[in-house]
């Protein structure tokens, strides 16, 4: 038996989570280093996966298959296609940065009341918990990208909510404009809202998962997709549509798609910046990824049936998210609404059902992860210096902290898809792919780019330019640790902006496969059709 590489990519952070949680209370710096080491080791394994993956090979590679719960027809089946590989590597890549960026975010408060700290001495270990939870989320996200058994995917898709919930509810920004008590209330509100939205989505998916089992008799993605393709598994049109809707609802909550998005601004606003990055850059990708992998492959006909409605919702997400981002006064909420707009683009690309659209969407997932991480983490460094999330509290930062301002600008420009930076390529592909088939929708979606320029540049202008506000006059520039976080992300943004081929090479064959599952071909170019 060959080495179970995919299991290892998920097991390593899981083991890391357990070990980190077990570090004694007094040794919290050791816990941080341990978590970082495990996240880097996971990255190394992910790179091995990337190297071992052959883009022109079979559809699912590095597969593993073991019996798990035979009674439910569940097998522990893993395998990656190009899309999966790209996202596994993205996840493994971002987690070390998230851990580094959050290095001091979970240190115990010095001001804690004496009675509590003496009572709980040696037992309450927030720092260990914070980093252990991040690694736990990493493990579950990675296995979600690798699972080719619907049930296995579902289990980790749902279980992921629990560590995320504790990360959102248990840890917040140090300073809050309304004091710690209000912050704590808002945080637990955001955490509960996050959990309820996603749990409801997940439970509705559970009904659909059970329905799928009743129809298909097993949970294997490959078997069901094959049976669908060669006609041995017939689903009644209505059954397929209901099941599709059950799955799609859960993924649309996770992604998030308008009008199911309202948990995201709360969750991102109230959590610490690294956790906000974790939500939007990593965890939410499971939603869009699952649309590509499960919705399209299991329910091709229903996907085509639902496409018009989904495209409209995606365009609404793009425009609505961008408009609300323009109106935000809070930096983190602004990025959250910008993300909603971007997820609209991703979903648009997926359901445009063209190879350019879906390649663009997959590339978008990767690029959005990197660019949002860059922008949001720099924003977090900014916020931690001033102790406020309000845009109005800043001004003229570029004069006192030029490096911070510069990296913030690059992150912002990536968010508005400036040519030369990575997100441009993916956004362009999505729009071209959409335009081929749905010109009107493509045109409306393009306005999203204009609005993106507006909210990003206005944000930069208000915080970084103009007269230096007295509160920011003593603001230190980026420290070495912070630069170590931001610089590689920016290098990646520029590299993938100029030369996206490495990613597209891996992704394209998988996209072609997915498209053939839904029996869609790219439309013929106009010129040839006219002949």
């Amino acid at each position, binding site marked *: 038996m060959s080495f179970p590489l995919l299991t290892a990519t998920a097991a390593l952070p899981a083991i890391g989570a357990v070990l980190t949680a077990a570090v004694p209370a007094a040794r919290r710096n050791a816990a941080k280093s341990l978590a970082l080491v495990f996240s880097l080791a996971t990255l190394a394994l992910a790179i091995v996966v990337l190297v071992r993956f052959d883009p022109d090979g079979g559809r699912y590679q590095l597969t593993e298959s073991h*019996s*798990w*719960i*035979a*009674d*439910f027809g569940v097998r522990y089946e893993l395998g990656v296609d190009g899309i999966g590989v790209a996202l596994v590597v993205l996840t493994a890549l971002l987690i070390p940065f998230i851990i580094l960026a959050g290095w001091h975010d979970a240190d115990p408060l010095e001001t804690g009341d004496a*009675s*509590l700290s003496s*009572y*709980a001495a040696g*037992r*309450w*270990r927030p720092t260990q918990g914070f980093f252990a939870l991040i690694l736990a989320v990493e493990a579950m996200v990675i296995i979600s990208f690798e699972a080719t058994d619907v049930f296995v995917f*579902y*289990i*980790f898709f*749902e*279980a992921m*909510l*629990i560590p995320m*919930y*504790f990360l959102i*509810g*248990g840890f917040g920004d140090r300073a809050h404009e309304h004091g710690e*008590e209000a912050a*704590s209330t808002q*945080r*637990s509100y955001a*955490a*509960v809202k996050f*959990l*309820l939205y996603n*749990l*409801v989505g997940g*439970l*509705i998916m*559970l*009904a659909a998962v*059970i*329905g799928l*089992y*009743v129809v298909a008799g097993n949970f294997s993605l490959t078997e069901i997709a094959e049976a669908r393709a060669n006609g041995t598994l017939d689903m009644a049109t209505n059954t397929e549509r209901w099941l599709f809707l059950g799955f799609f609802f859960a993924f649309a909550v996770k992604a998030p798609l308008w009008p199911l998005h309202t948990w995201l601004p709360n969750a991102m606003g109230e959590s610490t910046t690294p956790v906000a990055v974790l939500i939007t850059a990593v965890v939410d990708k499971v939603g869009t990824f699952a649309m590509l992998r499960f919705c399209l492959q299991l329910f091709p006909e229903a996907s085509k049936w639902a496409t018009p409605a989904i495209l409209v919702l995606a365009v609404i997400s793009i425009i609505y998210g961008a408009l609300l981002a323009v109106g935000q006064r809070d930096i983190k909420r602004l990025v959250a609404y910008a993300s909603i707009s971007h997820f609209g683009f991703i979903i648009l690309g997926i359901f445009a059902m063209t190879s350019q659209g879906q390649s663009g969407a997959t590339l978008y997932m990767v690029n959005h992860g990197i660019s949002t991480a860059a922008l949001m983490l720099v924003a977090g460094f900014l916020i931690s210096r001033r102790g406020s999330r309000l845009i109005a509290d800043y001004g003229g930062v570029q004069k006192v902290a030029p490096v911070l301002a510069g990296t913030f600008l690059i992150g912002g420009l990536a968010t508005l898809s400036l040519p030369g930076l990575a997100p441009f390529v993916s956004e362009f592909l999505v729009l071209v792919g959409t335009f081929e088939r749905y010109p009107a929708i493509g045109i409306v979606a393009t306005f999203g780019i204009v609005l993106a320029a507006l909210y990003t540049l206005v944000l930069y202008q208000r915080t970084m330019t103009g007269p230096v506000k007295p509160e920011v006059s003593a603001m230190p520039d980026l420290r070495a640790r912070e630069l170590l976080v931001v610089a590689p992300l920016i290098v990646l943004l520029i590299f993938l902006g100029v030369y996206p081929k490495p990613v597209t090479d891996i992704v394209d064959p998988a996209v072609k496969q997915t498209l053939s599952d839904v029996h869609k071909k790219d439309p013929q170019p106009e010129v040839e059709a006219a002949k």
Partner: protein
Amino acid sequence: MSASAVHSLWTTAATAAEPISKIDSPKIEYGQLSPTLIVVGAAIIGVLVEAFVPRKHRYYAQLFVSVVALTAAFAAVVALAQGGYGTTKARIAAMGAIAVDGPALFLQGTILLAALVGLFTFAERRLDPEVHGNRVDSFAAQAASVPGSDSEQAAVKAGFTTTEVFPLLLFAVAGMLVFPSANDLLTLFIALEVFSLPLYLLCALARRKRLMSQEAAVKYFLLGAFASAFTLFGIALLYGYAGSVSYGTIAQVVDGTVQNVNPALADTMGNDALLLVGAAMIVMGLLFKVGAVPFHMWTPDVYQGAPTPVTGFMAAATKVAAFGALLRLLYVVLPGLRWDWRPVMWGVAIVTMLGGAIVAITQTDIKRLLAYSSIAHAGFILAGVIATTPDGVSSVLFYLAAYSFVTIGAFAVVTLVRDAGGEATHLSKWAGLGRRSPLVAAVFAVFLLAFAGIPLTSGFAGKFAVFKAAAEGGAAPLVVVGVISSAIAAFFYIRVIVLMFFSEPRPEGPTVAVPSPLTMTAIAVGVAVTLVLGVAPQYFLDLANQAGVFVR
């Protein structure tokens, strides 16, 4: 498919029903009945211990007798199952009164293990502060003394403890063992009374908040007596219809394969009104024990008032026993009537799931909250009962096993959180528990997540099993309602977690008592079963599958 053909999906004909030649000596298969007999015998020994062993030694003697009895009875169940009595050699013993088959043995094993774990929480004596140098448990010093009276004070001062709880527990367990294996209606009724009466008593025995405890017991007794009366009346009517109290004969009369069983009842036999009303009344009695809406009114009050160890035991074991009896009644006696009872049970399952989940949201007491949660869970289990497939039986068996250990564990944690007045059950007092005692809060969070059915816990595996069975049995709308009520239920489980982990501890908050190894074992078993059944349920699903066929 004909009624009898469907019937044979989940039942097999009993082998070797020997003809009775003489009336004089009844034939009793002592070996096959040994689990029940061991427990009854130990209970009687327990009574003798109360009478003859000096007071200071009674606690240890009782604990020893109970542990040995429950372990031995469990070993007997395992031996019977190994001997094939759960599958190929399933038979009807004791002159047709008791069925020895897969569901019976599986449920008996579950009840015995749950009772053993429950027993540990009964025997816990380190939570309450010592009274006059004596360690005391959760039970009243002397049940007979009026609360607040001089005699109560004298009893407390003398360091009395109510060691009678151990034989009472064993009697209740004995009744519960018979209940799901009863194969005629009279045995069913007697088993019902045998396990109910000790429970009424146990409910009244709380050391703290005695008036509340006694009030709970009176409510439980009155409503339980009503339910028993309904059951008994139903039995009479069914006897009038079929001319027999034996499950097999009634089923045959319902199917129409046998007529004229009892010439003396020629006037009433075959009267469908008797059948329908009688069956409805018996089912009503069982639904009362299960705690299904609209027969659930007693649950919150009794769960809240009873001593917490009793609540945990009762919530787990009673539910197992009563669902076992309900399954046997519906699947063995009344399959021919399933077009009549299925719509009714649909309705009951829907209101139970939704009712339990919705009302639980407004609760402010942890024990009441768990009570309503148990109602919602009864609804989920009913969804599996309605499936009327072999998968339905095994999914219900699995769910019951998973649920009972989570429940006992959760109530055991409740006993640990205390303030000056005993257990601090008001939810506001649990604020910030995660800061003060991370381990206790984390364990309770695991139980809550299992109740909520989060993947990788036993709650999810169980819920998936029953919903899958229900969907395959053509009850897809029930699955949708189940999923919706799970979402509602998740809200209040999560609320408790929020309270424990994200709220600031209150300065006058409760303390967490350090228990003896007894309660620790109970909680540890609960956590272990929750995680094992969540991550690797296959072995237990296989077990439940093998046990999924009734004998008739």
